[in-house]
């Protein structure tokens, strides 16, 4: 059996985030995810701490590790200096590396994040640009955002001289040389490999789930929108 604990220990966040948990549950008490989901960071840290490889594998393949919002409210509260949020980050990274993330509904959502935020970073140099916040996918943004979205050139021109163009200012177009540097950084440091890993396992799982075209737009929209996990 794989030594998941040893693999987790290769991640500095895991080494920083887990010392010895006494199971007091303060992390769960302040956790916004525990507020909403059937989620208990205390229990996750407790499981990982036992080094029970089967139990860790269940975590890596399950929904639970994907509930955390990475707000890190747990970090300053832990009386033993642990950071359950860091443990979660390490678990999620390993789940993706091993292709286990596609075994849960919440884990499969990584494809949507890669295709929206991830691809946008490589395309524009930003995580978010106005045209990514499409009103039909963001009804919560309301009519003012719809107005901004529909009149983006007019509205943003009130605040920046370079909307969509090169130069200094908000929402400028980042020059090609800088974008090439960002892409090469992704190629060199494992970012591109992570994106490819997410795509590869998503495509495999999509076919397994009966999506004949693999991880196509239909699969992507399904993972983005469908929610069968009871809060």
């Amino acid at each position: 059996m794989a030594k998941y604990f040893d693999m987790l220990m290769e991640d500095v966040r895991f080494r920083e985030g887990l010392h010895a948990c006494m199971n007091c549950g303060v992390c769960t008490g302040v956790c916004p995810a525990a507020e909403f989901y059937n989620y208990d960071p205390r229990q996750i840290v407790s499981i990982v701490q036992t080094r029970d490889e089967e139990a860790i594998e269940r975590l890596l393949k399950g929904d639970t590790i994907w509930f955390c919002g990475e707000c890190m409210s747990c970090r300053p509260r832990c009386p033993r200096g642990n950071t359950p949020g860091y443990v979660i980050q390490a678990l999620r990274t390993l789940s993706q590396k091993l292709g286990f993330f596609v075994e849960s509904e919440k884990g499969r959502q990584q494809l949507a994040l890669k295709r929206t935020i991830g691809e946008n970073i490589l395309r524009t140099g930003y995580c978010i640009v106005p045209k990514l916040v499409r009103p039909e996918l963001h009804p919560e943004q309301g009519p003012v955002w719809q107005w901004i979205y529909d009149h983006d050139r007019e509205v943003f021109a009130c605040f920046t001289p370079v909307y969509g163009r090169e130069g200094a200012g908000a929402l400028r177009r980042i020059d090609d040389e800088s974008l090439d540097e960002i892409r090469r950084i992704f190629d060199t440091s494992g970012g591109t490999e992570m994106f490819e890993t997410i795509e590869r396992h998503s495509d495999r799982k999509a076919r397994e789930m009966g999506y004949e075209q693999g991880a196509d737009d239909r699969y992507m929209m399904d993972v983005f929108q469908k929610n069968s996990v009871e809060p």
Partner: protein
Amino acid sequence: MKRNSWQDYQKQIADDHYYYARSCIRQNFFPGSERAFIDILTRDLGKDLLDDPKHSSCTGIGYHSDIVPLETIMTVVARQFSLMNEVGYENFVTSCITSFGIYTEILATWQEFPETEERTREYLRKATGREFTKPASLAHTSDIVFHFRDDIAARAKRRLVNAATGEPLRVVEHIGCHYAKIFPKSGIGGSEFPYVLAGMVESWGGECVDYPERRHCCGFGFRNYLVQANRGYSIANSHKKLESMAPYKPDFIVANCPGCAMFLDKWQYTIAEMEGTTYGENGHGIPVLTYEEMAGLVLGYDPWELGMQMHQVDVEPLLDKMGVEYDPAAKYLGRNGKFIGKPDTAAVNCGQSELLYDIKE
């Protein structure tokens, strides 16, 4: 007294010569705030700030969505430092709380695990041929405004008081988790009693409201908002905060983090549409400001030049309370005063005074 423990958490903030890094979220939703920050620093206070077009996102939203590996974001951050070195600056200022958390975490990780810094240097060299030195100081843009809060007070055209009664305005300040929860020493006041916004509010005549969920997360939760299926998490946590603050009748909310400002604004709209609940006076929502907007109003800036028309919750009830003069008909005009229509109405703005703010086409 524990309430004064913020005084234990002070940090050095550079007095001048800032290398400015923009925020993905702030420039999307509050571009007027980024402009106001630059104007306040350079025009009002005479400071030097460089807005370098070569810098990029820190990729922090990707990192906290777990699709950007730690090694990658470290190298992106190293590139930002390299760009700063190239133009001869050493005081790095970022306009985003997620980014601020990223920079503090990475600098601390390099300190704690030096092999990660070495590896970052190798990746950066290989990918771009660049080298870098770390910044002499790292600050969030609100730290800088806090640093100059008394200079701003000395130039104030308005104060955070009710113009009719002379009473201080009641302000909910929301700090944003990644400002000081990750590294309490990196934020003014630490994570228990952060003082960065409270200090501004007090200097400019307002008073902060203490309420039970003051330190609770706004509910962004990265993947919990970015993936549509998960947004119940996000609205549920904003709802918890709004329910907790409403009985204290705040005049407005001011947020440190651009994401928090956007969520506390937009989720009020959503809650009003879904449940008919509003949290402010006379059936309105509670206006949500960025600290740049708050500083801008104090300095006499026009609210529409600050970009406050981009909020979903109308700010006019607050402007009226402060005695701010503004042109209602100019609110939704485009570049050069061009009329470009106006947004549909929303339940969150449908109080009894709604008609006062209706723009005559």
